[in-house]
Every structure is written in C-alpha cells, then in structure tokens.
C-alpha cells in the first residue's frame, strides 16, 4: 500500500475526477482525505496498486485540467496518520449527530 498525494485547484468536479480515475479500474479506495492547503487542495489516497496501475492512474491524474502535482510517499507512516484523521472525523460526525438528537 502506498500513499498518493494529488494537489489540485478545488474547481467543480476535480476531486470526483481524481477519484473516478481510481474507481474505474476497480481499485479499492480504503482511505481518502481531502483538505485545503494554501491556495490549493490536496487529496491523500492510500491505494494498493501494481506498477502498471500506478503509472496509468498517475498519468490520468496529471491529465486532469486542474491537477497541479502528483506525488507518492511510503504508505505505512501516512496510512497511520490517515487513520487518525479518519477516526477523528468519525468521532466528530457522531458527536454532531448526538447533539442534534
């Protein structure tokens, strides 16, 4: 598993285009996190892909009009951070749900 960082301009549909490039190849999306980073946004994805899939998906991402940069980092560390983010998010969401009730 590796972690992929796609930096993009947060224009209509760009995030979905980034995700679709993965999903149309029926590659699992176990973790996705998108956030603002300065003037741009970054989406972090943890993905299990072989070398050919990696090349193709990265090329598809780069071909998206509002994608600025694609980088890959070692999965383990980032996946850990990622799961922190994911847990926080779930907690926040359930807290809100509780508040409403």
């Amino acid at each position, binding site marked *: 598993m590796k972690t992929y960082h796609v930096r993009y*301009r947060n*224009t*209509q*549909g760009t995030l*979905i*285009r980034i995700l*679709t490039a993965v999903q*149309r190849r029926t590659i699992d999306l176990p973790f996705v996190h998108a956030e603002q980073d300065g003037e741009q946004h970054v989406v972090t994805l943890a993905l299990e892909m072989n070398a*050919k899939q990696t*090349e*193709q998906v990265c*090329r*598809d991402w*780069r*071909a998206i*009009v509002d994608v*600025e940069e694609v980088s890959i980092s070692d999965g383990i560390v980032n996946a850990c951070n990622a799961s922190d983010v994911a847990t926080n998010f779930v907690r926040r969401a359930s807290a809100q749900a509780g508040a409403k009730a």
Partner: protein
Amino acid sequence: MPKGSDIVLSCLRAEGVEVVFGYPGGAVIPLYDALKDSGIRHVLSRHEQGAVFAAEGYSRVTGKVGVAFATSGPGATNLITGIANAKLDSVPLVCITGQVRNTLIGSDAFQEVDVLGITLSLTKWSRLVRNVEEIPAVIAEGFYWARSGRPGPVVIDIPGDIFRTQSEFSGPVKFTPKRASSCCAKDSGLFLRLVDLLNNANKPVALIGGGAKASGAIAPLRSLLDTLQVPTCATIHGLGAVDFAKDYYLGMVGMHGTRQANLATHDTDLLLVFGARLDDRVTGEPSRFAPDAKIVHFDIDPAQLDRVRGCELAVLGDLANTIPAFHLALESAKLPEWSEWLSLVTHADRATPDSGNSEPTVKFLDELYKRLPENSIVVTDVGQQQMWAAQRYRSANPRGFVTSGGLGSMGFGLPSAVGAQIAKPDSTVLCISGDGGFQMNIQELATIRRLNLPVKLVIIDNKYLGMVRQWQQLFYNRNYAETDLSDNPDFVEVAKAYRIPAQRIGLDAIAGSSISRETADLFTNFLQSSEPELLVFDCHPEANVFPMVPAGASLSEMLTEDQ
C-alpha cells in the same frame, strides 16, 4: 444592459463560432430568444443526439470547435453519447446545456438532472455557471480546454434564470492557463536516443493515428515518412494522413486492417506510433501486440503513453513540434537501408487475397469512390459498411474520412454528414450507413431536407445488423439472435416521405467485370446532383468483412475469406 444569453452568444462569437447545432426547450428559451441578433447560425436537428453528432461532423472536417445547445433534463441526457464519442475520438466540442433555475437546483425540479455529475467521466472540463458575471471567463476557459492539448468535450451548464439576468458586460475575455502545458520535446537527448533506436532497428514500422491530423502535423509527417521510407500503416482515424500511393504505405491496421499492415505491425522490431491511442481494435490482443517491438510513442496526451504496452521512449508533446524536431535530428544521422524489409512486407504473398476484394459491396464502393471529386468527404456509420468504407478509402484528404472510431456509435453517420456538409457546402459529402444505423438517427432526414443539404446518402442494406451477425456466424454457430432486420421499412419510400429523392439498386447492377453504362450514369448523376439523394444498395445478407482479427487473437492471426 445585456442579458446572460446575449453575453453567452457574444462570447461564442469571440471564440469564432459561426454555427451551432441544437434543439430548444424550456431552460434555453432565453438563449434561443437572443439568437436572432447574434450573428450565429443555428441548425435545428430533430434530436439532441443529431445535434451533437452534427457538431462533431462539423468539427472533424474543419478542425474548429463544434458547438451544441440542449435544454435541461432530457435534452442534456440526449447529448451523452455524442459527448462520449467526442472524448474517445478527441474532438473539440462545447455543449451548452440549460439547467433549472438556480434556486431549484438540487430540488429534483421538473427536467432537473445533474448534468455535470453525469458527464464528469466523459468531459475534459465542465462547469455549472452560478452567476451571470462568470459567463465570459467560463466560456473562454471551456473553449481553451476543448481545443488545447488532446482536444475533447466540454460541458457548460447554465441555469435558465442566468440567461435572463441582466449584467454589465465589458466584452469577452481570454483565458490563460495557470499550469504550463507539459512537453518534453525540447529534450534533444531524447531524439538522439530515438535515432539510436532506429539505427539498431532491422524492421521498423510507423503507425499513424488521428492525433497526426488533430495537431495539424500532416505536412511535417509526410515529409518525415518520405525521409524514413519505413513501412507505414494507419489507424482508422489516421486514414488520409498518408498518401495512399506511397510505396511504403500498407493501409489500415487492426481488426479489419490489411494483411500487409497487420503482418508488418506484428513482425516489427521498432514501432513508431504517431498520435494513436492503441485501443484493442488496433492492437488485437494487447499482450500479443507487436511482441518483438520496442515502441516509441509520440503523443500530446500523457495519459495515453504506456496505457496498453510499455514504451521504450515516450515523446510527449504536440506532434506539430515533435515531428519536425525528430526530423531535424535525423539530418545528421546516417540511417540504415530498410529496402529489403520494405519489399518483404509489401510482397504480394502478404497482400489480402483477391477473394477478399470480391465482395460486391467492395466493388460498389470502389465504383462510387472513383467518381468522387477530389476533396470529397466520406462519412460512415458503424458496422460492416464502416469497415468496407475504410478499407477501400484511397483519398489523401486528411480530414476527408469521418467516422466514429473509438466509441463505434451507430447513428453517427447521418447527423455528422449534416455537420460536415454545413461546414463544407461546396464539397461532396458521401454518407455510408447500414440499414440498422441509418434508423438510429433517421429523423435527421428532415434537417437535410429543410436546409436542402446535398448530402449523398447510401444505405448498404443487408437486412441484418451485419457486423453483429458476422460475429454470430463466425463465433456463435450462426445463431442470429435479434439481428434480423428483414422487416425493415422501405427506405426509398421513407426518404420520399421526407421529400428526398431515392432509388434502390441490387447486386445485378454491379455484377460482371465492369458495370453497365446505365449504372455508371446512375452513380455519376447521384454524386453530382445538387439535391440530397438516397441510394439503397441491396447487398448480400450474409456478406462478411475480411480480413478479420478475432477477439483475443494477435494481428498475425487474421481470418480471410478463403478460410
């Protein structure tokens, strides 16, 4: 103060738009209302799919951006096939769709669909306009992306109330991209490596795709090929890019390519690919495509490189720049002689057997083709007739062969011939359809009649969904499940109902070694008439297209008629 619709039309004018193809409806009434003073010609199709295919036909023969209008909901969803078609065939297209008014978006209002969502995976770029002030910037950016790099479809969705809103307008704007387009063609080391690969190649082959035309690189490409003198073949979209008369030209490659082209591509040790996506209709079984070859891939779209087979060298950039740069690098190189390889691949024993050309439909098409004036345009639908039309195409008009290659969408022929004829009113436009595909957009006969477009319509009538029937015959034990069209309407009478002159000829008209004077006159008059006209050719119901590379086979494993 101008309204949103006036601003849209001014911006289209500024982008050089002269003609749009479309179909009105509630959400776009204000846009249509403003058309009369806009200086833009609107062509009313009889179905939105007709409009978008016509816009593509217009674009394919001119290289300009095709523009289609449709209303919200069903109008927009009827555009989808055309948008997909434009994506796969790299056609610059801008679709402007009406949307329900801003305050209703997301409420499942009457005729509301999420056009942006539906088209995301098909478009290169899309926007839902949220206020009238952003119209100039959105249109400028949309046209920029439709044309730039690998051209493709763009959708601009505009809520009905925005068309009606008045706004200050200081004129159309220009779009400058934030990201510089990627191109590594300046890397001179790249071409030195390429020259090195050529020097070590014993059996080089060049494969030309539609990208060579889209980039306007035909002249430099032809000059490069004249220098290289290597066996050359073309994909269906590459037809017309290379002069057919050249000794080194082997014809079309792929599922119904020529034997010479397919065998050379299979045997090559260095394949130079210029602007082709290498889809499986071209490669046969991808894992067995050009098995001994190193591939050098010239393309503007980084997403195409390595998609099918890893390439040894990728030359990323506009072919209009990379081909001359490559040619320049060859000037100081002393290339090997490949004449022996060329005579091997062009040898008669590698040609398609004569029997492959004995199909009467082939003869019928040859007779029509040889009477076509220069710079005519041939438009096809999809199926057997498309393959015969491609196999027999001999013109060197780079934008003269218009077909739905990537999507293979039946119903493309008739409406795209409308667009082609509007773009080129003085050219002969010959539209070849099957009896199945003709009925998919038959309503566009009304468009042809109203505008008196002198399109020459041909139906190759085998009373079957011929291409599917061929597969059923060869691979499904002749189980012709749901491909029988023997109860077709009388197309001659249908055309006459649209007030389009029509006639039918049978196999007997072209039997024998040469056609009769009467038939020859019929063909000549048909092609020269200043009116639209339909000619139905009753072909043999079980005629097949050969050679054929079966699904899953390599290019060297072709079926021919005698097998």
